[in-house]
């Protein structure tokens, strides 16, 4: 090759890359090769650009920062400016990228043709048809169904519907109607208050899954750990946390005490606690609480204990603890609020808060959550009946998939002459539509959301549309309505109003630019007092559960990752082990061992659950984390469409639910079922090995009293020292390491990268796992390979349980397990080709190009954190392809995509470490501990800030201080592996009466 030819090739490849980023990313073949003569202002090849926007995976409205490389978003992280999530992000938020690059997205407008099939059409034709159909339908029924929209898009739809004589309803599968109704009953206001978990000193959750799907999970989890984590030194107290509910959910895993109340009796417990508090005058209750006294008397612990399924003394003790803490917070939601009497349970819990003096302190009305925009099931059911009666001429659906959540709705769709879907995914509703107008992904579009009073969160496109054939639904509506301008103009007009109120003297342009940079405008709203409403006493009569007798009570709960099914076509979320069951890619039915014995079923046996509304066939997962005679089944699976990862997977739990709304206007998720064992058996793809760790020192738990007595410098967990006879060998090894380091010119003082993981903070939510998938190009392997334990999760959450047998209280401990970056690593000496080696800064490096796949390193790793590439997961079109186009666009260009036959493992995000080091070197400064603390992707994402990273050689670093904490221990320290990760033992507040 001569110089001329070399330059030619260089020019073409370089130009190709430039054109890819310059002309937008899409599956179209690149038409022109243009050199990057004039680079866009905001792009330097190889350097990431960050854009602030808002997460739309749920209604919480967390702030996002999207890392964009060469024109494509490659990683989502929490926006530290946002008061909602404070820089943290959950697994669903992380997986937003897989919605953006989803290979099954609809690439352009589709119209149902004469043959009944959806066929491509043009936007001009589609918009014209839409406008015409809507105009024709005037007076014959036009309904627009949206998701939970709290911003400009919802306003635009409302305006349009008003103009054409239609109406909008919002549909959320889990709209928490009972929460609003319960608040109305108790306080006369349907507002959903802000719950100040951080300030609480005693937390009781009545079924509220506030760390997974309830209202604002990241925010609440972050605040919860501030209250519940054990902070020795400054304040050696911690809030005790009690979880009440028939099933221990992810939120319940952190509980110090679990009250397995019978489904629907949670309200009775709250009333009995309130009764004790009022009768014994345990708290300074507001003056008007006295009028509750007489009605509460009907709910003494003795009277209700049997119904709840616990003994009266426990209720009395809980009431005393709650009142004595001086900062109690009781929340009701989730399973409890979704029972038929959910609103009454919520009202009862409100009363408990009220008599304990929590309202106004930990329960703050004022900065209310925008839950009223979630709509109600009553509205959807009414719409469904109208549709079935032929009273709806045009139905438009955006951001909701009611055909999956409600089988009767799917049937009624057939009676609507013209159905329009704005979904960019081929979901069940879109498949039934006559016109599909695929919207941009939230990461590609302008919009805003107001998750709670005072928070105005902005959404901006972080990249050009992945599929240029998709169009912003707002723009489509503006065109169909015959209005000028784009949706961005509409949004800015709406924001002029925000500017008027919160502009602070800045010009609109300045204000807008600042809002974009910060992801929105955040203001404080004052709290307002509430008083008992007129319905408060009446609600008490209804707190008892009105259940029909069946073989068992089925509790249908939202899957923490897949939610109502909207996450089902994202392989990261499908492969994320459920935090409780650890099952992937499939639904399951949780059954207590005692009940399973009675039914004669083992794990994986399929049972037929039959309610009055319908039936599902679900494989059994036997667990002590559920109450006997209760079957808990998650939603999320059972799609008949929605894409390659979602369709045809297990069962749709919505089929069990009645189609009629309950008194609160919501759906009833707790139903009586008949259970029949079938001959089928499913081999569940679980990542759980042995759920009991048998005191091997992988997880350690300290009782609160013992933890409070700890003094700095005195470690409770004895670390085995190197015995004298082995010391020589170890020193020799260390010398050899230093010599090797000197060879590469690495001599000098190096950091010792290390991590501290506080188990009193870890909730097992698994956000870190998905963050790791996103950052490190981890392949998803699919259900069949997970069955063989071939998942590639460098970071896994181990969920161990203790007790739960012979009347012992059940406790769960979760611990992230990842490469411990041992100082004395067993993986290194067994590698015949030195692919596993020791870096001067203390990491166990793994050189993919050197690895020949002997797999000995994994055999010799006591932590079992090395993962082998059994197949070529990156092979385009291959059977095990993990990134079918355009999913491969989310690959992090800083991290190698591994080949078949090589070993891989956690690197402590070495690419991020090197990035920071380079940054510091270019600026000629030292690395600051503050910029290292949350550097790895797992630490960055963790909603509870349980993972802290840094340099162990820096005596002032936070990681060093935490590692020296007396609660600290190394996993399997006895093996003398010298791990870089120090775990801090979980601290458990006393469960039961003992203090």
């Amino acid at each position: 090759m001569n110089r001329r030819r070399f330059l030619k090739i260089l020019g073409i490849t370089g130009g190709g890359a430039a054109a890819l980023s310059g002309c937008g990313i899409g599956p179209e073949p690149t038409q022109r090769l243009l050199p990057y003569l004039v680079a866009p202002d905001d792009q330097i090849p190889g350097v990431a650009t960050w854009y602030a926007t808002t997460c739309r995976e749920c209604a919480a409205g967390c702030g996002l920062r999207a890392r964009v490389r060469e024109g494509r978003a490659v990683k989502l992280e929490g926006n530290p400016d946002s008061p909602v999530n404070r820089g943290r992000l959950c697994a669903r938020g992380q997986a937003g990228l897989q919605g953006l690059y989803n290979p099954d997205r609809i690439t352009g407008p589709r119209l149902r043709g004469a043959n009944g099939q959806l066929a491509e059409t043009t936007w001009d034709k589609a918009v014209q048809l839409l406008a015409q159909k809507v105009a024709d339908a005037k007076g014959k029924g036009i309904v627009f169904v949206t998701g939970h929209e709290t911003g400009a898009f919802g306003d635009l739809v409302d305006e349009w519907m008003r103009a054409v004589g239609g109406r909008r309803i919002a549909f959320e599968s889990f709209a928490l109607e009972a929460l609003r109704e319960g608040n109305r009953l108790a306080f006369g206001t349907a507002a959903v208050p802000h719950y100040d978990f951080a300030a609480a000193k005693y937390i009781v959750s009545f079924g509220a899954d506030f760390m997974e799907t309830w209202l604002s999970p990241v925010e609440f989890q972050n605040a919860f750990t501030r209250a519940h984590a054990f902070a020795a030194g400054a304040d050696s107290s911690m809030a005790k946390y009690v979880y009440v509910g028939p099933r221990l959910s992810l939120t319940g895993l952190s509980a110090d005490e679990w009250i397995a109340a019978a489904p629907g009796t949670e309200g009775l417990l709250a009333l009995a606690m309130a009764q004790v508090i009022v009768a014994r005058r345990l708290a300074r209750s507001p003056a008007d609480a006295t009028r509750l006294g007489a009605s509460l008397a009907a709910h003494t612990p003795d009277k209700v204990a049997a119904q709840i399924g616990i003994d009266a003394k426990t209720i009395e003790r809980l009431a005393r603890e709650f009142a004595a803490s001086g900062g109690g917070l009781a929340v009701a939601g989730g399973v409890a609020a979704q029972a038929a009497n959910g609103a009454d349970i919520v009202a009862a819990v409100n009363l408990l808060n009220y008599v304990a003096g929590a309202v106004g302190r930990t329960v703050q009305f004022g900065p209310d959550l925008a839950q009223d925009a979630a709509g109600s099931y009553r509205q959807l059911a009414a719409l469904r009946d109208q549709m079935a009666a032929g009273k709806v001429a045009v139905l438009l659906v955006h951001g909701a998939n009611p055909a999956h959540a409600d089988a009767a709705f799917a049937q009624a769709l057939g009676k609507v002459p013209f159905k329009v879907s704005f979904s960019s995914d081929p979901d069940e509703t879109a498949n039934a539509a006559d016109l599909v107008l695929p919207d941009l992904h939230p990461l590609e579009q302008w919009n805003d959301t107001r998750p709670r009073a005072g928070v105005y969160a902005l959404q901006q496109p972080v990249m050009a549309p992945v599929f240029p054939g998709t169009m912003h639904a707002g723009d489509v509506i503006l065109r169909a309505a015959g209005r000028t301008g784009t949706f961005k103009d509409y949004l800015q007009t709406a924001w002029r109003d925000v500017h008027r109120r919160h502009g602070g003297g800045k010009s609109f342009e300045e204000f807008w630019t600042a809002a974009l940079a910060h992801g929105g405008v955040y203001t404080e709203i004052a709290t307002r007092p509430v008083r008992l409403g007129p319905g408060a006493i009446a609600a008490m009569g209804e707190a008892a559960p009105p259940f029909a007798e069946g073989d068992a009570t089925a509790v249908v709960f939202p899957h923490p990752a897949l939610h109502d099914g909207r996450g089902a076509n994202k392989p990261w979320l499908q492969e994320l082990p459920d935090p409780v069951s650890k099952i992937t890619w499939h639904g399951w039915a949780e059954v207590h061992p005692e009940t399973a014995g009675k039914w004669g079923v083992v794990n994986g046996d399929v049972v037929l659950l039959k309610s009055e509304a319908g039936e599902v066939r679900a494989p059994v997962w036997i667990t002590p984390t559920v109450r006997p005679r209760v079957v808990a089944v998650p939603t999320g699976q059972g799609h008949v469409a929605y894409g390659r990862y979602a369709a045809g997977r297990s069962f749709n739990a919505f089929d069990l639910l009645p189609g009629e709304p309950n008194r609160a206007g919501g759906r009833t998720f707790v139903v009586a079922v008949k259970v029949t064992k079938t001959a089928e058996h499913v081999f569940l793809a679980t990542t759980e090995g042995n759920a009991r760790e048998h005191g091997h020192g992988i997880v350690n738990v300290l009782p609160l009293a013992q933890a409070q007595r700890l003094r700095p410098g005195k470690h409770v967990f004895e670390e085995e020292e190197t015995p004298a006879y082995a010391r020589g060998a170890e020193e020799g090894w260390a010398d050899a390491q230093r010599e090797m380091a000197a060879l590469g010119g690495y001599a000098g003082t190096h950091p010792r990268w290390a991590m501290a993981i506080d188990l009193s903070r870890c909730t097992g939510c698994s956000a870190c796992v998905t963050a790791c998938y996103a950052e490190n190009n981890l392949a998803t392997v699919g259900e069949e390979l997970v069955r063989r334990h071939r998942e590639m999760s460098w970071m896994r959450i181990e969920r161990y349980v203790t007790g739960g047998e012979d009347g012992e209280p059940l406790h769960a401990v979760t611990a992230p397990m990842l490469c411990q970056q041992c100082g004395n690593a067993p993986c290194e000496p067994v590698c015949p080709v030195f692919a596993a080696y020791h870096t001067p800064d203390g990491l166990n490096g793994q050189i993919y190009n050197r690895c020949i796949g002997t797999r000995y390193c994994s055999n010799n790793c006591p932590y079992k954190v090395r993962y082998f590439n059994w197949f070529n997961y990156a092979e385009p079109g291959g059977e095990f392809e993990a990134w079918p186009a355009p999913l491969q666009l989310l690959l992090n260009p800083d991290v190698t995509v591994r080949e078949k036959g090589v070993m891989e493992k956690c690197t402590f995000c070495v690419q991020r470490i090197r990035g920071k080091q380079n940054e510091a070197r270019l600026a000629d400064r030292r690395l600051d501990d503050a910029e290292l603390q949350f550097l790895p992707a797992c630490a960055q994402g963790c909603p509870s800030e349980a993972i802290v990273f840094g340099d162990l050689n820096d005596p002032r670093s936070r990681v060093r201080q935490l590692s020296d904490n007396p609660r600290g221990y190394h996993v399997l320290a006895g093996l003398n592996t010298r791990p870089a990760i120090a775990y801090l033992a979980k601290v458990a507040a006393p469960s039961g009466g003992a203090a």
Partner: protein
Amino acid sequence: MARPPGRVTYDFVTRTIARTLGNPGKGYFLLLGAAVTLLAIGIICLLYLLRYGLGLAGYSHPVYWAVFITCFVFWVGIAHSGTLISAILFLFRSGWRKKLYQLTALGWRGTNEEWRHFTRGYLYLAALATPLVLSVHSVVSWDFAMAIVPGWHATIFAPYFVAGAIYSGCAMVISLLVPIRKLFHLEELITVHHFENLAKLCLLTGSIVGYAYLCEYFVAWFGGNAHERAAFWYRAFGPFWWATWTMIICNAFLPQLLWFKKIRTNITALFVMSIFVNVGMWFERFVIIVVSLAGEPFERWSNATYNPTWADWGIMAGSFGWFFMWFLLFVKNFPAVSITEVKEVLPPPTKGRPAEAHAR
């Protein structure tokens, strides 16, 4: 070596052994065909693995080594005992093999000087090979023992593996020799006495292996290391208990029958026993490798079972095919019993006896 009966002369030896090289019959080709088929299956599986990845085999985290390594250790063990089937080529002219032998003979003419060099060379090779048996299998064992995996990390491993190798080799020799002796009518050359000696060697090495098993369990208990104890408890009573007990019964208990001379000298009994030992020794390697990894006592969360797939069985079948194909080709193309060595123990021909017996 004890002397064969009197009618075994130089001439008889040459004729008897040369007869084994006669034109093969249908049965031989059937066996050869079966071996080649097995090998072909193995090769096809190997090609699949190369194309799609090792994932086609039954590995599951943390069982990252399984049937392939089991087979490797099994065959290495057998190979080392191959020195016991000493097969030094004796050259003689016979039909179509003449050319082959001329080529491999490298100009051997059978002169006195050449014989002198041959015996010297033979001695040196034996002196080299004997420690090799010890060292190579020690190294194989240390490949495991250097790990920290309970069940691998044991000082007893070198003698344990060497004894195991000789043991499995002896068993394999018996398994192969019994049918050959019968089919080729070598009863007068390979006598019951030989078998009895092999049986004694089996008894010795089998007892060493049994002692090693005992030692492992004793140390696991006596050492007091919780991980070690958990691993050995899992080995004996975990989901793979059947593999462990197959290994213990076949390798440690059954050979104790060899204390009885009646059994040592009963060829059928020996054959049956040798098959059991072969199976047992395969399972010994399986238990050491797979069960130690599956029962990982450190990280409880990673416990998993192991289910082999068609790829595992295919490669294993291929390894047997590979062995038996070469073995079958060998017995028909080379004298399976060393002619010179047998002759060495015969009384040399003296005057008055036919002279040609010596020449051949």
